[in-house]
């Protein structure tokens, strides 16, 4: 796992993917960094221009392909760099969140929040809380699909 | 060859034994729909219904890996890469159990495609290891038309073993050595005087299908109608361009090849494809010789009833299994198309 010395790190990570808008939340995460607000390391941030660019399908794709948690973060409502992108995102992501249980995926594995570029502390709190939440849920059920497919391939010969 | 009897209650035990030595492909019914699949341990197939799908996936899977590729970088110059290609051919023997005579015939139609001038090693590896246990059709339905394509509900062609239904089981008829081998079991008992019963069911089934239209000999009519766009438009009007007809067809063989990669590894995969899809002939330049669905239907009909027969001594690439007719969401009936083609193009 570790690329440093081949030994397992002291903490067991889970895979959490974050989609952060360039203008607010990515900047908020930067601010947290500049302020040295320490955070769990599980999250991998993908930069997008706007939360409105995050199609819910990215989230489902990630959750169905093995991500244990997905966090989308954008500008606060009314404060979108593109004025409306996060407002579209809010509707789409809320519908998605309510849809997940039907797929057998815990809705808690996905969250969407608003963090501005100045809210380094809020970012730290959010990442920490979300990471703890995902660790409480444990690994994603997507593992099962992977195994199932592997078995079917073997069965299909 | 001689007939032996398999009681219905002995079917699970027989399958259990087959399962020891080989993969068993057989129809499972879920939610009222029977479809072939590789059985899991202790799974009992349903042979009572006409399966919605054909068993062709046993020899021509819907997805298969043609080969994998792996890149290795040179340590001293990362831009120098060695690429390893490797592929794997099927080794596990398999039995298709509960195929219908039309299905067995379907495999016979695929053989010359994959085993002609160019040999497809993936198909042939599976095909060589496949035993076909067919069940004759005592109860064909209104979508069936196998006699019109040169087959019949009790046609033994292509099967290794044919099960003739009787009230409480089957009379099994070994047709090949491989088929015979499967009968060497204490589960089978002598057929005794059950043959007339089977024969009477056969007569009834054949009588039921007596009116099936003849789908053969349409080559000239097709060529005559090739340019009649109105004809093809009407024939295709209701088509929603889904893939049911080709994917359920026991004779369709068209496929696609795509690459998928992840990091320094990847694979080239082969998947079923479908001639009613717009993308089937879409060229990168934007040109598409079969832009309209009517042209694609024309090619589909042409392939089955003109081009294939022209190459294979008049045999049509259709077994009359009726699956496309049963499942088409728009009720398109290939019999009607060929009938009216033969009428109009005569």
């Amino acid at each position, binding site marked *: 796992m570790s690329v440093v010395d081949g030994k397992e790190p002291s903490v067991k990570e889970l895979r959490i993917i974050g989609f952060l808008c360039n203008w607010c939340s990515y900047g908020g995460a930067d601010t947290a960094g500049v302020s040295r607000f320490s955070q769990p390391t599980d999250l991998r941030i993908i930069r997008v221009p706007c939360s409105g660019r995050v199609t819910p399908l990215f989230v489902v794709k990630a959750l169905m392909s093995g991500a244990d948690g997905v966090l989308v973060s954008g500008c606060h409502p009314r404060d979108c760099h593109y004025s409306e992108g996060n407002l579209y995102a809010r509707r789409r992501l809320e519908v998605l969140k309510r849809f997940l249980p039907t797929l057998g*995926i815990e809705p808690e594995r996905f969250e969407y929040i608003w963090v501005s570029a100045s809210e380094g502390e809020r970012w730290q709190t959010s990442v920490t809380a979300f990471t703890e939440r995902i660790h409480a849920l444990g690994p994603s059920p997507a593992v099962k699909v992977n195994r199932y497919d592997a078995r079917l391939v073997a069965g299909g010969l | 060859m001689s007939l032996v009897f398999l009681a219905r209650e002995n079917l699970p035990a027989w399958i259990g034994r087959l399962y020891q030595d080989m993969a068993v492909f057989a129809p499972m019914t879920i939610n*009222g*729909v029977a479809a072939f699949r590789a059985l899991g341990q202790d799974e009992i197939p349903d042979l009572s219904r006409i399966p919605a799908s054909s068993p062709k996936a046993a020899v021509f899977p819907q997805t298969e890996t043609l080969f994998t590729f792996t890149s290795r970088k040179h340590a001293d110059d990362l831009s120098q890469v060695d690429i390893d290609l490797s592929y794997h051919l099927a080794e596990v023997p398999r039995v298709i159990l509960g195929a219908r005579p039309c299905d067995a015939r379907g495999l016979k139609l695929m053989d010359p495609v994959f085993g002609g001038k160019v040999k497809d090693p993936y198909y042939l590896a599976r095909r060589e290891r496949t035993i076909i246990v067919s069940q004759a059709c005592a109860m064909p339905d*209104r979508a069936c038309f196998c006699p019109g394509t040169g087959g019949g509900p009790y046609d033994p062609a292509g099967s290794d073993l044919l099960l003739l239904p009787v009230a409480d089981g089957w009379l099994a008829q070994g047709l090949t050595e491989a088929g015979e081998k499967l009968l060497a079991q204490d589960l089978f008992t002598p057929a005794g005087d059950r043959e007339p019963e089977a024969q009477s069911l056969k007569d009834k089934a054949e009588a039921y299908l007596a009116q099936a239209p003849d789908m053969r000999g349409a080559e000239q009519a097709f060529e005559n109608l090739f340019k009649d766009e109105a004809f093809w438009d009407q024939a295709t009007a*209701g088509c929603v361009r889904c893939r049911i007809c080709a994917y359920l067809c026991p004779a369709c063989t068209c496929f696609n090849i795509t690459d998928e990669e992840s990091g320094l590894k990847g694979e080239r995969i082969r998947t079923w494809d479908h001639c009613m899809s717009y993308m089937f002939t879409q060229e990168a330049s934007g040109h598409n010789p079969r832009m309209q669905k009517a042209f694609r239907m024309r090619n589909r009909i042409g392939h089955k009833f003109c081009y294939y027969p022209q190459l294979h001594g008049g045999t049509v690439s259709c077994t009359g299994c009726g699956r496309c007719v049963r499942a088409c969401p728009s009720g398109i009936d290939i019999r009607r198309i060929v009938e009216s083609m033969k009428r109009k193009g005569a």
Partner: protein
Amino acid sequence: MSTIDLLREAIRAKLPDLDMVLAWGGDDPLRASPLFIRTESDLENLAAPHLYVSNLAVNLYSLRSKKIGLVVKGCDSRSVIQLLKEGLIARPSLYIFGLPCEGVVDAAKINREIPDAGRATGLAVRSGRVMVQTPENEHILDLDAVLADRCLRCRYPNPLIYDQLIGEAIPVGEIPDLYQDLDEFEALSLDARHDFWMETMRRCVRCYACRNACPLCVCKAHCVADSREPHWLTLETNVSQKWFFQVLHSMHLAGRCTECGECERACPMGLPILLMRRKLNREIRELFGYEAGLDLMTTPPLSTFSIEEENIAEREL
């Protein structure tokens, strides 16, 4: 006159003004097929109304350059409204025959009930019973047992948009529990739901009949499911690809699906895929008070927003 005669005469009268009229016909006793009426003689092939199972609106987008007459049931009319609302078809090139509908029979259910249904030679509906004739038997079934699912929860037996109503409007009966099936499904554990879809999607043959039978799926040839740019899906037919396709299809229909059920009817494997679409519809109803295909004016909820969302709580971590 019977409904079928009224319909035949109505179409006959309008046919000269139209390129073609879409209705139902064919000789399958269990279900009618789309009938493309171009000449009066085609009218002879009209089928009986309880077999009008398919939704003819699926053809409208590809025929949008033509002047089309279309027969719609209440449920079908919602698809027409949705297509109009999305600007995918134009009202002036459409003439709508509205057909009040008492429900259609579901051939798949009859097939499940009767082993020899495939050999049926005739079907008749009389006073809550369905008679199916086969060469060997005559089967009698309860109509409710073989009505299409969507008919059992039908709230719109009368078309919501039409130029001409065929016969009398049907009084709307008691509105049944809309989402009983979904409630039952959601009573299962998350694990059980997950496993349910794995088993269900294993049986999918990825034939795209669900997509192509959907009146609102107009991308078709250019569907992202088949493309490499973007490359959302590989062509592999494993569960993860097939399942993701169903999710993708459902989500592209969120706020648009009218629950006409054609996806499920078209599925050759009988997979209960409408369930996902219905779940999204229920959530959209609860969040935005919106149902697709009821009117021409409202904006679909995912194409708009409110600065203050009444039913969405602000999320905090």
